[in-house]
């Protein structure tokens, strides 16, 4: 068999996202990434809910299920439990995954079902024409919030951490190289992998991530996390994050200023849940946006445990067939009618 390429993963369906939508870039990255996994195409399944991002499965030439609003994690749980051999991806958005489907997202993460969950966060409802979403910033004016939204937004990564997710990462729609590296780590993780992808909606919420996406400002506003490496950023890489022991919080410092040396900078440790929480909760008006694997601390996935329990029961319990089951418990015989 010749090796699979991007073309093998493209479908003949006409892609129906708006011109300039960040989803195009994500699609391309994933179509390019999947062939590198060496997994037969028929083993991959893409499951989505409802929303712009949820059109995704139609454009992947794998198995796919475009389901109903918010329920992709539940459908995917059923798929994975029915056939744990499958490589199952959940594609969702900020509205689908955190508003109508927030409960399912919470439970799929705490159960740690072995799924790759990609949440395209554009901080807006696109498909229903631009209402504010659970990740929209306060004050955002939309058709349903003409005077500015008064809803406090939630951080998808903090939500995932609180739910008990064991792999949490963040990347950017148009950064193919970084996104590929995050996807690669997410895919290698056994259990629920939660990836927030900052995705631009050019129609209803254009430019909200320019701060981290714009080449001119990006280096000042991105903190590229690497496990075991110091948290450095800035054009010349001299800015960094230091732990302020008095306030027990992170602060931005510059090496060489005020006696700051490299050893003062916090080393990223993706197993450290406290650090992960600090990174997720940074005030982005002051701090750079952390990107990459923020938290990774694997435990045995749910589906493995379900099957392990079944094997154990089968080893210890007496095996019975259907007729024996029907005759289990107290029975009696009537000799003649």
């Amino acid at each position, binding site marked *: 068999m010749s090796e699979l390429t991007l073309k093998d993963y493209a479908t003949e369906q006409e892609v129906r996202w708006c011109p300039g939508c960040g989803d195009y870039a994500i699609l391309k990255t994933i179509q390019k990434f999947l062939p590198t996994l060496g997994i037969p195409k028929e083993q991959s399944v893409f499951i989505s809910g409802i929303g712009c991002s949820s059109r995704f499965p139609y454009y992947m030439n794998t198995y796919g299920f475009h389901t109903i609003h918010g329920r992709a994690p539940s*459908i995917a749980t059923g798929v994975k439990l029915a056939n744990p051999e*499958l490589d199952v991806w959940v594609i969702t958005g900020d509205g689908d995954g955190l508003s109508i489907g927030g409960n399912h997202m919470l439970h799929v993460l705490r159960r740690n079902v072995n799924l790759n969950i990609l949440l395209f966060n554009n901080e807006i409802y696109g498909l229903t024409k631009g209402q504010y979403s659970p990740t929209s910033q306060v004050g955002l004016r939309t058709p349903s919030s003409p005077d500015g939204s008064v809803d406090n937004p939630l951080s998808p990564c903090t939500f995932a951490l609180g739910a008990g997710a064991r792999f949490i990462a963040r990347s950017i729609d148009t950064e193919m190289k970084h996104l590929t590296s995050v996807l690669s780590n997410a895919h290698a993780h056994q259990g629920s992998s939660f990836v927030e992808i900052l995705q631009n909606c050019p129609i209803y919420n254009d430019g909200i991530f320019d701060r981290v996406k714009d080449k001119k400002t990006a280096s000042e506003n991105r903190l590229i996390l690497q496990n075991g490496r110091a948290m450095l950023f800035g054009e010349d890489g001299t800015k960094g994050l230091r732990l302020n022991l008095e306030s027990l919080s992170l602060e931005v410092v510059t090496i060489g200023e005020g006696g700051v040396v490299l050893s003062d900078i916090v080393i990223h440790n993706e197993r450290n849940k406290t650090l992960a929480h600090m990174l997720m909760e940074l005030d982005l008006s002051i701090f750079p946006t952390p990107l990459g694997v923020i938290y990774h601390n694997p435990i045995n996935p749910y589906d493995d445990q379900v099957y392990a329990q079944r094997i154990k029961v089968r080893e210890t319990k007496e095996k019975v067939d259907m007729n024996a089951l029907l005759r289990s418990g107290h029975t009696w015989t009537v000799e003649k009618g």
Partner: protein
Amino acid sequence: MSVVEKINSDAGLDNERSTIVVRFAGDSGDGMQLTGNNFTNASAIYGNDLATFPDYPAEIRAPAGAKFGVSAFQICFGSDEVTTAGDEVDVLVVMNPAALITNLDLLITGGLIIVDIDAFTAKNLKRAGYENNPLETDELDAYRVLPISITKQVLDTVKPFGLSHKFAVRCKNMWTLGLTLWLFDRSRELIISGLRTKFSNNSEIADANIAAVNAGHAFGETAELPSGIEVYKILPASVPAGLYRNITGTEALAYGVIAGGQLSNLPIFFASYPITPASGLLHALSNQKNFDVITFQAEDEIAAVCAALGASFAGSLGVTSSSGPGIALKSEAISLAIATELPLLVVNTQRGGPSTGLPTKTEQSDLNQSLFGRHGDSSLPVVSASSALDCFEVAIEAIRIATKYRTPVILLSDGYMANASEPWKVPNFDEIKPFPVQHETEVEGFTPAKRDPDTLARVWAKPGTKGLEHRIGGIEKDANTGDISYEPANHQLMTNIRKQKIDGISRDIPSQEISLGESRGKLVVLGWGSTFGAIHQAVKRARQEGLEVSHIHIRHIWPMPENLNTLLAGFERVLMPEMNTGQLVKVIRSTFLIDALSLSKVSGQPFKIQEISDAIYSCLEEVK
């Protein structure tokens, strides 16, 4: 005169009965369900036909002595055919004043009351609403009362076993069981061995309970009881030869689901969220990991149905289960199953509604919901079990339809049949015809829109199959390619196909049979669900009186059997008892344009035979 009295006087013998009804009632912590179940097993092994009705409150442990905390278990057993738990009670066992005041109405005049006088304290009497102790007034003069100091007897009996007062008092139910076993001449053997198994880790509790059973029995044998209270002679029923067991509707349904999986050659994926009275099915299936069954307790009703549907997409048979309020939450996903044409079994164990309603009581009021409670034109097959035993066959039939036609199927049970138990002549599984499902493997010419020309079932290609990668979803799809389509003509076509597919199932289900009586006549009583037993007895009695009445009971509620229209046309009147305000009757009226009459009951209690008999008489009056 009650039925039993009538039969009794007909027989001309004092304590020899063809059928008898016993009701055990006490606090929800008194263990009356356990007493009833044990007595049921003993009667079944003795060879009686029987039907039971566990009637328990929603409260797990209500305050002691409270009226709303009374839990009762009723059993009708006898040498005759028994199909209901009985209209009226012949022997009432009450453990406290609240049990007496809430159940006395059911007792026939001259019936026997066995009562624990130790529970008739001033506090308990007041809580039950008695101003005076009814055991000391003339209030119970119409009945025969057997007052026993049960609590004291029990405490004396179990003293040597060193139990705490709390555990010692709990042996009351076993003492009472022992006494009733004596009263009806039932064997203690099975119960004693059952207690040994149940308390195998705690021999003191086992010994104490066994001593209580024996002491209750000995009390009956040795105590000087008032005249007229002696052992009843209830002869075994004449039933077909074979191996029997007792089974509840929930157990029968669980076995039917496992059997359906084997017959279809599909793994079962069962996903559910706890709800009364449907949770029993989740418990039963969770304990069957030896079979090809995966169970999943989801975070909510929606997740349960969605996980089941996901499993069906992956090639298993997804099954989900709930009661009315939970089914409402599942309805969007059921419509997705209709749109994607995947098999799915949805079990609804109905309870009193709307909303939380009467969670532990029975009703048939989710029929409209099953037929019509979804968005869009979303027809699906609905089948209904008619008794605890019937749940086994109906589950298999529902799975056959779901897998053959690639459609969600709703199976209606209810709280009454889910909890009621009946003796079951265990079928030979090898004699049930299998219906193995083949998933698609043919790559040549594959599209996800491919259909079987006869059944119109859509192709079922499961992920993991090479060359059949495809996408499905809730958006309307092109009838030929399966790609997304918003074409007006295509939506018309797809809607028609979906409807035709379901309608066509009527050609693939058994012709409607007559349960009892002739195929023509003055009156037919047309029923569905757990009203079967009461209708059957009422029609049987009417026929014994020479009345021209038949009984038809529908299993396939949608689509209906093709011959049903013709059958109904053979009767001058159609009477439809339902435990709702008349739901199926409207479907029958509109489908067949006939003037069917509704007999409605929504008290949370099953129909009494007499209620249906009365309706039969009044219908026949009109026909004259």
